[in-house]
């Protein structure tokens, strides 16, 4: 019995594991809630692109501060807000199709980020932290930032729930009801941008789209109500953070990858059970 308890408790006797766990759960929840809108509105590619686009901003912050990590969040936040508004403006006004425009900006910015980081000698290690996350390197200062912005995002979603819902489901109705549709859409883009900055350290830019869409997509298989979908997605993402950290600790695998893989397995199992169930009920 003691062995079982210590199996579960022991990893979290380390302070960095505790901080990592809190960060993984908070980031999981905020990604899941915002990700629900990303899934419903078909914005997965936009979310993926936005995550990659912040790399040059993070790289500049990294070079300016001489390798210190504390200020990187603010660089990530600034870049992602500017990039989200830039991408949406460009894809709206351009003759080029939206996904093509996103693809061009996203790859170009990502390459710029890699080029900037490659000027530093310890480039391989640092780059992998930005790309795949470093949840075990979260400081208590980082944790405060993550907590405050997670709270802010959840409050905004709660306060403007009916606006986000109406604009996502039926923009024409929202217009006839004289809702500020453009403003609401912009607010949603900014929420996604903040989420990307908050999640950067935990899962990294390359894996972030998984946190944004996989738990929300899993929840969409399980319920037909939006509030339930948000709660379920949050639970799935938070639990995946916990399980992922266990796997990371005992199997010595990268923590960001372990969390994302757990989300993916949960999705795959849910999808398989769901398909099996519906093929059964059709017989």
């Amino acid at each position, binding site marked *: 019995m003691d062995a079982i308890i210590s199996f579960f408790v022991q990893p979290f006797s380390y302070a960095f594991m505790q901080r990592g766990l809190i960060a993984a759960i908070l980031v999981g929840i905020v990604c899941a809630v915002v990700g629900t809108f990303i899934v419903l509105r078909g914005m997965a590619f936009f979310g993926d692109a936005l995550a990659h686009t912040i790399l040059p901003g993070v790289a500049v912050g990294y070079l300016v501060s001489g390798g210190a990590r504390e200020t990187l969040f603010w660089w990530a936040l600034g870049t992602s807000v500017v990039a989200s508004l830039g991408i949406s403006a460009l894809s709206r006004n351009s003759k080029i199709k939206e996904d093509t425009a996103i693809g061009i900006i996203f790859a170009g910015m990502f390459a710029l980020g890699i080029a900037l980081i490659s000027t530093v000698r310890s480039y391989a290690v640092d780059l992998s932290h930005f790309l795949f996350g470093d949840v075990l390197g979260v400081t208590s200062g980082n944790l405060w930032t993550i907590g405050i912005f997670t709270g802010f995002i959840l409050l905004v979603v709660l306060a403007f729930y009916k606006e986000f819902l109406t604009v996502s*489901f039926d923009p024409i109705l929202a217009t006839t009801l004289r809702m500020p549709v453009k403003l609401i859409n912009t607010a949603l883009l900014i929420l996604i941008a903040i989420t990307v900055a908050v999640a950067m350290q935990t899962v990294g830019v390359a894996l972030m789209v998984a946190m944004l869409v996989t738990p929300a997509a899993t929840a*969409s298989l399980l319920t037909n109500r939006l509030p339930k979908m948000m709660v379920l997605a949050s639970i799935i993402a938070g639990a995946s953070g916990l399980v992922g950290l266990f796997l990371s600790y005992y199997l010595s695998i990268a923590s960001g990858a372990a969390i994302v893989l757990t989300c993916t397995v949960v999705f795959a199992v849910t999808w398989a059970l769901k398909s099996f169930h519906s093929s059964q009920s059709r017989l």
Partner: protein
Amino acid sequence: MPTSGEVQVYGNKPGKHVCIAYIPQRTQVDWHFPVNVSDVVMMGRAAKMKPFSWPSHADYQAVNQALDTVELRNLAKRQISELSGGQQQRMFIARALAQEAELIMMDEPLSGLDTPSQEGVLALLETLHQKHVTVMVATHDLDQASTYFDRILLLNHRIIGFGSPKEVMTTERLLKAFGGRLKIVDANGDTVLMDDNCCHGGDD
């Protein structure tokens, strides 16, 4: 031909009134969106609610009343993809009622519905009429237009006729509206008009 202008609704200038409801074509809706019938009808209340607020008791009452009017109260908790075509149409009419609309605009509301569903929707439009709600319907069905509606606006890029079905539905006007597509057949002294609307382009 004028290309811009101003529309007044019940004497109100643009931007004044939230009394118009638009009912989308069924193909424009994401039916797998995670909302049930009552959620969709509640969206009509969004303009009546204050910012930062959640639905009040009065809002729920308005939703239930609207659902009673369209006879969907028993399906309030259904996911919207589980509705039949006629029920989907009635749900959007309930949303317009919850919005307290005085003018409802519908784009081909009967297309793709079977006859009983069409009759259900038409009966509902009659109920709306009695509740002093004006309904504007775009349709290609000449027979339904003249049977069920008080006034007809015949359009082909410009207004060809506006008035009661008797005034508007003359052979001459219909020929003008439908051009070569309309076949006129003389059957035992009665004139029969046939609209060949199977394969026209998207310009109307």
